[in-house]
């Protein structure tokens, strides 16, 4: 499997005008350490040199919108 897919979920009111990220193609992705559904710490840099990553920020995950 080429890519490891992460999804970061959020619930709440969507902003009318979404912020424009300062990140661009070709830039290094900021590292992070976050908990998965089992409480295990997942670090982006653990995948460096091993797998590509699809990172999805899924705001309003429970709304179906």
């Amino acid at each position, binding site marked *: 499997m*080429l*890519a*490891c*897919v*992460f*999804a*970061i*979920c*959020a*619930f*709440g*009111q*969507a*902003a009318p005008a*979404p*912020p*424009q*990220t*300062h*990140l*661009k*193609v*070709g*830039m*290094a*992705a*900021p*590292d*992070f350490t*976050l*908990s*998965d*559904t*089992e*409480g295990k710490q*997942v670090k*982006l*840099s653990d*995948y*460096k*040199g*091993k*797998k*590509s*990553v*699809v*990172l*999805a*920020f*899924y*705001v*309003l*995950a*429970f709304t179906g919108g």
Partner: protein
Amino acid sequence: MDSSPANKAFAEKIAVKFPLLSDWKRTTTKDYGLYNEASGYGTRATFVIDKEGIIQHLEVGRTAIDPTGAYQVCDLLQKKKAAPVPLPKP
């Protein structure tokens, strides 16, 4: 931004096969420039990050739910023909 237990319930409901992470403190959402101070929430976005940790594709906003662009970039990476994909014009 949801808690890990809330994410677990969601993951079981939709039977996801990939890690579902919680950004409870919103630090990662802020680091990626997706946090809206006024609302206190983030916005949807999809990033494709290659093995070297470099962003090869990003999509921000409501269209980010469509995985087509991410699929295309993943296909390029798989064929080892990865090249930066230009950002769409606003």
